[in-house]
């Protein structure tokens, strides 16, 4: 199994991913203690932001990787195998707007279109299209919660674990779009050429 390169996401999924790797016998102690180093060749681990994991895995720079379903849905054009729902890191993709009377309702009624800020323009656009509503997506990179408070948009689509940040900014959840958990993905070529190693990894993760 040591011949597999695993792409590990830093950020919210980092700690639980390292716990999982340790449970299946990969020594991740150096990865945990050194937050500047990115490549850990001895144990076959590369670390990166979660949204880069599908890129490295699709191109074969890593054989397998772990990232959130939200990232995979947003980058659905990346050709990777989605092998396993790891169950942890559960977050909900929600549509939210400021508390009180929903400003999205008024926008829809009077202007025919809702303006939405999000880091997930594809997921958001798909949700509005699937429910037959018109919306304009505004992609932001930083704190999405700011956008409706400043009047930039009528609502936001964002990922939330506990809803605390939304509440603290006076926002309420209007719709739940999808629950996202961590997924194990594989490069399509590695999935064939390293079938035994990948299947063994799958077995160990299922048993962990």
């Amino acid at each position, binding site marked *: 199994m040591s011949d597999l390169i695993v792409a590990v996401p830093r950020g919210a999924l980092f700690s639980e991913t390292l716990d999982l790797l340790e449970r299946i016998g990969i020594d991740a102690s150096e990865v945990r203690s050194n937050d500047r180093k990115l490549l850990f060749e001895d144990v076959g681990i590369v670390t990166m932001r979660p949204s880069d994991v599908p890129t490295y895995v*699709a*191109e*074969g720079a890593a054989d397998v990787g772990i990232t959130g379903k939200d990232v995979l849905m947003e*980058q659905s054009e990346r050709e990777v195998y*989605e092998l396993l729902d790891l169950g942890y890191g559960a977050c909900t993709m929600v549509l939210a707007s400021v508390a009180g009377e929903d400003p999205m309702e008024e926008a829809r009624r009077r202007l025919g279109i809702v303006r939405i800020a999000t880091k997930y323009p594809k997921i958001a656009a798909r949700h509005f299209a699937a429910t037959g509503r018109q919306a304009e997506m505004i992609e932001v990179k930083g704190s999405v919660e700011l956008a409706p408070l400043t009047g930039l948009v009528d609502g936001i689509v964002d990922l939330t674990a506990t809803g605390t940040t939304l509440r603290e900014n006076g926002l309420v959840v209007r719709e739940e779009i999808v629950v996202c958990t961590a997924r194990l993905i594989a490069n399509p070529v590695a999935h064939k050429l390293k079938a035994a190693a990948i299947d063994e990894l799958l077995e160990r993760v299922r048993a962990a």
Partner: protein
Amino acid sequence: MTATDPTSAAPASAPTIHPIPSGTRDVLPDEMRELRAITARALEVFQAAGYGEVQTPALEYEDTLARGDVRGAPPAYRLFDEQGRVLVLRSDMTVPIARLVATRYASAEPPLRLCYLAHAYRGVRPQRAQPREFLQAGIELIGAPAPQGTAEALTLLCDVLDAVGLADYRIGFGDVGLYQALLDGFDVRDEARERILAELVTRDFVGLEREVGMLALPAGAAEQLVRVPQLRGGPEVLSGLDGPAGEAAEGLRGVHALLEPRVARRLIFDLGLVRELGYYTGAIFQVYDPALGVPIGGGGRYDELLGRFGRPLPAVGFALTVERLHVALAGEERGERA
């Protein structure tokens, strides 16, 4: 500094940049020499095996490609001629050759052996670093049914990869009908079937398991529908398949039995293999190399395509993407991890 290597020349003045369309590129002499070495070897191997080289127009009528069913490999460019007819730049060579065979070889005695070296053009999904124009080297063997025709194509595929010097390649080998037969066997139809196949095509086994789980199937059936498409490896993965899926497995075994050991050892049986083109009917294959994270090419049987053009003949073919083959060769030379 030579005239053929402008990149090493110190610029006398800032260059004037003239853009080229997204997804296309220029090839300069150093790269071209290497590409030409590959394509020359490939054509030699094809011609030595009795495959005659053909050329077709880069432009086809849109109706021609629609007849061929190129879903999954949509054309990148459409234009109108002076009479308002819709023309497209071909998205592969198999459909133009099916047209050519029906029209120009209407009464020729099969089998027909044709090869080509040609550019194809595909619309690519946004944000993916993939060319819209790429060079394909391939063959079509028309009028040769399974399993002999398939075995001949696989053997030639290995011959050409050996001749260009690729060392560690493997060939994924499956059947487009196998999973369909499994679904038939468990009487999974209509919308549920479409949803399951959509998960398979997008390589999402988590979604596949979820969709299968939503059906009221006996435990054994559900287990098979989830497990079988994840099987890949030696011929042993074919055991345990019965009913209609067993027939497809029997077909793959039949081809395998005809192969020389040097070809057979390259195969990876893959029961979840899918190809993006819509015209495949039976055995399909895909070429992998450890030095490249994406397939180098592939092919398969298309026993019904010629019939759509009015000359019903069983057929099989493959195409290699020359640029990807070149990258894989360069990667193997650098000793990239296996």
